[in-house]
């Protein structure tokens, strides 16, 4: 093995280890890990199961909101959400039918929403404006229309 190859492979290994360390530090020390909530739910009884029997926006603290939302072809319930700037929003999500994706464009909110599972993700909205919420997992003929907005005032 040439010296240059040894250097290259050491750098390669080092780079992979750095990725591991950063990913681990962010996930476990800074709590920036990907959405991984582990609660289960009966996908055919979403409407009868708390908290999804009452989907909606609820203020739970100063500048802190909880959004309980169901995803179904081809809509988000509730849609057209309005919140004040500087709010932290905790989303609690599940699907009533097929697999959906929950994405808020221009943020890092991106989560799979599977039937049978309750997914959770949190986002702080500092900048006022209209945020586009869309389904980013193909869910059927109207998938391209499955969208709503979050207005931050």
């Amino acid at each position: 093995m040439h010296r240059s190859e040894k250097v290259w492979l050491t750098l390669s290994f080092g780079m992979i280890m750095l990725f591991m360390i950063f990913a681990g530090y962010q996930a476990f020390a800074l709590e920036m890990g990907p959405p991984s909530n582990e609660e289960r739910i009966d996908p055919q009884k979403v409407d009868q199961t708390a908290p999804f029997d009452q989907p909606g926006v609820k203020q739970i603290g100063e500048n802190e909101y909880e959004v309980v939302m169901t995803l179904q072809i081809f809509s988000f319930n509730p849609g057209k959400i309005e919140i004040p700037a500087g709010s932290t929003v905790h989303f609690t999500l599940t699907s009533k039918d097929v697999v959906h994706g929950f994405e808020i464009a221009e943020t890092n909110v991106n989560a799979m929403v599977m039937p049978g599972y309750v997914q959770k993700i949190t986002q702080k909205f500092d900048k006022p404006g209209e945020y586009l919420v869309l389904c980013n997992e193909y869910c059927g003929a109207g998938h391209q229309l499955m969208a709503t907005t979050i207005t931050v005032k």
Partner: protein
Amino acid sequence: MEAVIKTASFKEKTNKVMGVNPLDAKLSKSYFLVTFIALLLGGTFGLMQGLNRGGLLELPSWLNYYQVLTAHGLLLVVVFSAFFTIGYFYAGMSHTLGGLLPKVRKMGWIGFWLKMIGLVLVVIPVLMNEASVMYTFYPPMAAHPVFYFGLVFVVLGIWMCSIGAFVQVANWRKNHKGQHLPILSFFATGVFVLLVGATAFVAVEVLFMIIPWTLGWVDTINVMVARTLFWAFGHTAVNIWYLTAVSAWYVIIPKVAGGRRWSDLLTRVVVIALVIMNITGGFHHQIVDPGISQTVKFMHVFMSLAIGFPSLMTAYALFAVLEKTARAKGGKGILGWYKALPWGDVRFLAPFIAMAAFIPAGAGGIAQTTNQLDQVVHNTMWIVGHFHLTLGMSVAMTFFGLSYFLVPYVSGRVLTPKINRLGVIQTILWTIAMILMSGSMHTVGLFGSPRRTSFSTYFDNATALSWSPYLIMIAIGATALFIAVLIQVYAVFNMMFFAPKGETEFPIADVEEGATKTPYWTERWGLWVVLGIVVIAMAYVIPLTDFIVNAPPGSPPFKTW
């Protein structure tokens, strides 16, 4: 060393004298015929999608975007790639192992027809809009049962070809005790082992979960188990096509460039590493899924990143080989040596660009396997840009480059200077178009534009409207790519049926000068398979057990299109 060169050139001579067995050639030729018809159809669907996504073409209701996308994905990710891979390795085994055994050839044909039957069964429901479920067919979305029967036949065909390859290799090893399997067949063994391993997962998903459920024998399905089994297959499949391209980079391209191979031992180590570690890489598709703990996801970051290491070994090896070759041919300077490489030879140019494309493609892959970075781009157009770099450039351009000797080789014809020139033009057009299209996809994906979504302004939302310029660039790229597909398919048909008759060489590079003998432990395939299973068990036992033991009530089938 002398002796090595002598036996190598002796082998070359016997191959020249005996030529290719016409019966073996016919088998591979049939595979290539299907490969490039699939490319033509898949490319046509790609054009329709690109134009629709750019907002330039409204598709009729009887051939909607999601039908077209399902067909595009299946034709190019499964049919084009699998048929080329099998045709290429069967030709390679015939060439390096002294001709296919008659029973192996028969298995190759049975595999061919099983896959063709499967293909017809898959295509009919897709065309009838009964299976617009995409390449991933995630339950609880349910297609017509015939779609899944078709998939079963495709898998059976792949298994038949894999068994054929194993029989061929075992027979050679029995007759050549203590010898190393010729390198191209070594790659073939790795590829067929992975094909069996990968398709085993999807076979379980389709046979034991989806088919009983779509036929109504059971009411509900466990969506997370199905999804996890799919990705153990889905990602490995594309890595297999990549390993196929890598085999050409190590074994064939150095010869086309006029040089010798990289270290035989390190080449075999790369193959072994990719076989052992590959299947668990699929889990990174589930980084933003619910129901999987942060700890398991973090372990999988390591599992996926580990595959990057042999690829980084490959990156060094290939460019080092090319530099050495160019310098031996009189190339000078720190970088000026590149001038001594055969840039006008499409058999070199296309695979070279394919290799170069793997630098950004691999870097993107490393980003995507890392939890938080993946969350930024998951299910956006970035991902589509990524696999058009990896599959659309690194794999497809290697396959195109190989076709310029493989197709004439199996057809008893030659590559004419005219077709070579056409190939060079095709390569340049493809490169520009793919960079434009994939670059736009990566960019607009970072802004949040989702994948697998037909043209939509989301009720004239300002954010969505700002994506339009990039989406139009994608449409332009898709149009140029379609023209390049037409040129490629024309070139293949010319070389298959109309080019002047003659003998074409199957270029296989010799081992490097002064090479030390490769230790024999590289040939212990039984051990590599066991280690692969151990790694798979480490990766999948915990999450799959959790999905099964702590399963929520299942989901009934839905048809949402």
